[in-house]
């Protein structure tokens, strides 16, 4: 009897083992190791030595560049994420029409997100924003002086933000699905009552979409904090000019693999985890105030 149940269970264990093993090797053990390293002085080449909280304290007391990277990242996230969501919703609404080519449009708009994080796009972006790049030519043609996108610290970050806004495709698709789910009767009924486009949008579309907005907001928030490749490529790995594009993950990477300060980098990673966790929790906490679920109405 006993052996039979073992055999039965064994099949189950076998089936879940890829996940369990993968989770242990790729997530849990590395995470635990990085937590340990974050309390050590570890240069990758010699054994780590325990220094307690020193990495964490020096981050906030004696590292100007760390505070700069935090500032840049916050700017990037709080500027980029709302813009991206607004843009995604805007495009989703345009695509939520009945045109024959709509399938093609959706694919076209989604494409930047697939290739978006790639090195090639970042390089293309560099060329677009170069001194004689398309963007400056366009600015000149409407009478605005060229902007030194790579030379001016503020402009460089703005360029990264536009790159992130341009990659709105995945949130757009989710919005599109959300829009499809709004019952057309609502629009028809309100139309009968004389509601215009804006009333419909603010009274029906937005409230009905709030669960989707919540989802997109959190996903985008997390991914924005982890942005690395564009900043790495555009600033040639250094976060310049004047640390203007020194995103958190880029600085972490520099500490780990350029300065060989793996302990410090691990500590930075954990602080990032805490920041993202707190922000996500805050979004969830406020969501009670603005997210409406259809089922609640019937409660």
């Amino acid at each position, binding site marked *: 009897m006993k052996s039979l149940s073992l055999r039965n269970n064994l099949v189950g264990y076998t089936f879940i083992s890829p996940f369990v093993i993968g989770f242990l*090797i*790729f997530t849990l*053990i*590395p995470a635990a*190791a*990085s937590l340990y390293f974050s309390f050590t*002085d570890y*240069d*990758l*080449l*010699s054994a780590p030595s325990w220094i307690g909280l020193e990495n964490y304290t020096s981050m906030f007391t*004696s590292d100007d*560049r760390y505070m700069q990277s935090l500032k840049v990242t916050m700017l990037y996230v709080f500027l980029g994420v709302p813009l991206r969501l607004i843009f995604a919703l805007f495009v989703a609404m345009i695509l939520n029409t009945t045109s024959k080519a709509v399938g093609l449009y959706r694919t076209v708009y989604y494409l930047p997100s697939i290739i978006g994080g790639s*090195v090639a796009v970042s390089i293309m972006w*560099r*060329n677009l924003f*170069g*001194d004689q790049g398309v963007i400056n030519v366009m600015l000149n043609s409407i009478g605005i002086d060229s902007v*030194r996108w*790579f*030379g*001016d610290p503020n402009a460089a970050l703005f360029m990264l933000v536009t790159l992130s806004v341009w990659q709105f495709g995945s949130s757009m698709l989710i919005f599109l699905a959300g829009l499809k789910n709004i019952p057309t009767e609502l629009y028809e009924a309100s139309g009968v009552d004389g509601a215009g486009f804006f009333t419909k949008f603010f009274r029906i579309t937005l409230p009905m979409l709030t669960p989707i907005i919540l989802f997109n907001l959190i996903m985008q928030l997390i991914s924005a904090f982890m942005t*690395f*490749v564009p900043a*790495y*490529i555009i600033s*040639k*790995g*250094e976060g*310049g*000019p*004047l*640390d203007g594009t020194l995103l958190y993950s880029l600085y*972490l*990477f*520099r500490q*780990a*693999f*350029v*300065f*060989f*300060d*793996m302990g410090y980098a691990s500590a930075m990673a954990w602080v990032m985890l805490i920041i993202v966790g707190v922000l996500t929790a805050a979004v969830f906490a406020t969501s009670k105030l603005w997210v409406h679920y259809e089922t609640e109405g019937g409660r």
Partner: protein
Amino acid sequence: MKKQAKKVVLALMASALMLATACGSNAGTNSGTGTNTGTNSGGGDKPITLRMSWWGSETRHEYTKKVIDLYKTKNPNVTIEVEYANYDDYWKKIAPQAAANELPDIMQIDTGYYAQYAGKDQLADLTPYFGKEIDVTNISENALNGGKLGDGVYGMNLGVNSLGFHYDPATLAKAGVDSIPENWSWDDYLSMAAKAKENGIYIDGGMRAEVFFGYYLRTVGKKLYNEAGNGLGYEDDQLFVDFFGKLADLVKSGAAPTPDTLAQIKGVEDDMTVKGTQVGVWQWSNQFVALQQAVNRPMKIASMLNPGAKEGLYLKPSMFFSISKNSKAKEEAAKFINFFVNDADANKLILGERGVPVSSVIKEELKPLLSPEQVQVFDYVAWSEENSSPMDPVDPIGAIEVFASLKSLTEQLNYGQISAEDAAKKFRSEAENVLKKNK
């Protein structure tokens, strides 16, 4: 078991972070299996596999692979697996390999990173191989000692470099200056820059802070780092102010390009020396040929600025070949390094691309084969040999972080966001903060 787990963890942490690095290579599963064959001829018949890695440009990758092929025809039992990348990616690849004890048998090491690896017991001392596997009869003591750290030599000097001003005489004429005087001084330089500016031409694209500040300190008898490598080697911040103040003034006055202009340069096609809007570039001698080819006009090399040029100037190992401490085929690796440094046929492929060869015999052998530009480089390095002082000890651990700090501060200085006095103070505190870990 524990070590194994650590390896896995590190490899994962590394791969998670190394999103941007790209190069076709296999993060080693094998290290050499060869054992001591006991002969110097490289004969042996046991199959041996070595891993070798370097950074560089496309040209370097191509000829290095040819050198390896040549070695293989002479030593059919040796297989060399290669891993190469550009400079930045190279170090990001090497660091996790070091952590996992999987460094290649032969690896190219830069002076800036040298202490990091040699000082942390990652590299093998080469002195036991000198005079045995590695023939040093034609190599000067001075050249060998370029890789000296403590009592050991952990890297074979692959070539010699010297600093200079590489300029285009045609552009210089356009700038309204006939020629650069032989022992030119800071005053000559500054007045030339002003004159060039009047004619709408930049004098140069700036001096790389860490290299030329080090040079400047030497001209006044100081060093960038102290003997022990745990602090700066100068006390008076006025030296920083003098040097960087002068350079920042050039930028401010428009005689040298501003950092936002420099940030636009993506490659050779935008290079201002190539376009003829800039007189020249301050750089290492092995970079001359590539620049000259891009410019495609006759170019010249001027020596460094006086006073104190002789004290300031030094011959620097361009880079090293090191053998990793955990290599299981150190003798075989040493034999290959010997081939690279002492074999005439190999060096006919290399043609001094890694710096002027350290072997006097090879230097002579190459002379008839060199292009006129390469001859200029060889001559300049030969001249430097007579007109320079011994090199400082190798950069201490943390040098890369100190460079980054210096680079960032000079950038702020050139953007006009910080005064030279404040930058000097800030550099001192940031550098000391990094270097004090070496105590």
